[in-house]
């Protein structure tokens, strides 16, 4: 039963310990995660004060950082022990990332930004054609068809974030990680964007972990975890 749950998990961190700095240093910091599993189709919000380790948690789940102890699973496979290049390859296609500042490449069109993960993974012509089809479908769903030909500076904030969401979902990842994706948006746009993000992630069977400071949004998630409590016996509320 545990193994089945493990396979079904979009992401799982178990017995993880991660430290910044040396013990005794004033800036030293430790993040502990006893067991955090996010199933496919599940949306989890992560809260906690600034500096409590929310972004570190996201980076550990994505395989950007590797823990000193513990296991990190992505789409049912353990990734913490993999070679760096292999972790990068799995991240490019298995993890969708949405950032607070959108982080779109300013010299690429909306469409090229959406297709970026496939380019980074070295997709061939056929895979790019298929990705193009998914990008068009996502664009229709997210209402950004008209801005696909524009560069980011000619888009509104809401359009940029929706392009970023399309970029995160175009590889049909098993895990979508969002770091304050609505932090730079006005409340109405933030609500729209969140609705679309949750609907698309759930509809595509992706596990979603979102870091947020906005407590008014928490009702929309299946679960809310406080990063400070992940190292205690109970992970999640």
């Amino acid at each position: 039963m545990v193994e089945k749950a493990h396979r079904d998990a979009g992401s799982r961190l178990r017995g993880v310990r991660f430290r910044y700095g040396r013990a005794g240093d004033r800036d030293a910091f430790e993040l502990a995660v006893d067991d955090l599993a996010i199933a496919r189709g599940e949306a989890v919000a992560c809260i906690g004060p600034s500096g409590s380790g929310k972004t570190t948690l996201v980076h550990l789940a994505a395989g950007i950082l590797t823990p000193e102890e513990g296991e990190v699973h992505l789409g049912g496979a353990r990734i913490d022990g993999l070679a760096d290049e292999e972790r990068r390859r799995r991240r490019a296609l298995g993890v969708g990332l949405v950032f607070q500042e959108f982080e779109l490449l300013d010299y690429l069109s909306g469409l090229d930004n959406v297709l970026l993960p496939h380019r980074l993974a070295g997709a061939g012509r056929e895979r790019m054609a298929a990705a193009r089809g998914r990008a068009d479908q996502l664009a229709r769903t997210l209402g950004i068809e008209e801005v696909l030909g524009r560069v980011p500076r000619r888009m509104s904030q809401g359009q940029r974030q929706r392009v970023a969401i399309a970029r995160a979902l175009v590889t049909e990842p098993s895990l979508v990680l969002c770091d304050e994706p609505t932090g730079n948006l006005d409340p109405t746009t933030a609500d729209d964007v969140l609705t679309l993000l949750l609907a698309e992630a759930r509809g595509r069977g992706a596990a979603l972990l979102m870091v947020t400071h906005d407590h008014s949004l928490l009702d929309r998630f299946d679960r809310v975890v406080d990063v400070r409590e992940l190292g205690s016996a109970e992970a999640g509320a």
Partner: protein
Amino acid sequence: MSGLLYLAWRHLDAHRGRALLVVSCIALALWVPWTASRLAARYDVELRARAEATPLVVGAPGNRYDLTLAALYFRPTELDTVPYSAFEALAAEGRALCIPLHMRFTARKAPIVATSVEYAEFRGLALAEGRDPLRIGEVTLGAGIAERLGLGAGDHLFSDPTELYDIARPPALKMRVAGVYAARGTPDDDAVFVDIRTAWVLEGIAHGHADTDDIDEELVLSRTEDSVAVSGALIEYAEVTAENEASFHYHGDTSLLPLSAVLAVPHSTKDATLLKSGVNARKKRLAVTPTAVIDDLLGVVFRIKRFFDLVGAFLVATTTALVALVFLLATRLRARELVTLDRMGAPRRAAATLVGLEIAAVLAVATAAAWLMTAGTLAVLPDLVASF
């Protein structure tokens, strides 16, 4: 890699103004030393080739550089002349084929080279049309000047007047184009060749006019049994025609008629040595070996070139440093983008590869541009030796 290539291309395309500026800087920095180097090499080859083809030049004592540059490249200069008798004496020694040269005049700014028919054979000048300038008042044009002036056999060409306001000097001579030589890529292409006697007509030493028996008696100042003195108002012929050619004549001793130089082609090395040492020992003339003069001259040129090579190297080094700074600053500006790519799972060396690809593309385009600019410069420059 193809994905990174695409990103590199799109980044360059989005910042094409900056990229073009960097490409221009690199291309210019490469173009200057490349062009200078190629030009120097071409000068070296072409100048030496003509010097090596000319064993000995004899002229009036003076500057050996002026003598060589005038005799080989028709460079305008005020050379002292040697008398025609010097040419006859050299020829009489029987040690060399001697070719007279006189180069004091121009036609439409092109040097008029007065010589004998042996000159064309010596320089390997083949006729593209017409014939050699065998008669007084006839010219055969080099290929370059014929093309520039749009002249061919049967056309006419005026000599440039030497003194517009001095009525004592001969007027411009109307000369008939007898032929055109094929192009050789040498100074001969831009010269106007005439028979040596035509030069003396241009000098005013030889002239033609109506028979003194047929002219108005008012122009006759005195008349004796063996001579007639006429007024300066008697008009000399300004064109040599079949009808008036016989009337052209010299006054005075023909052995004193002037020459700029004599080209000597000795029959053997021994003849060359004896001829040169004999001429120089008498001290009335100067015999020079053009290769030695050109070697001297190029020695100076190449010493200067070494300085320019150093300047070129400094220019390239400075440009390299500035371009490196531009890319370093541009990469710093892209730090956030490169971090995003890293987080999204780009290969470990993606950032370095991306920047490297852009640098490689810029360098490739700049190198190609510099190569094209160098080739273009060399192609549009007038023939170097001809304009030396």
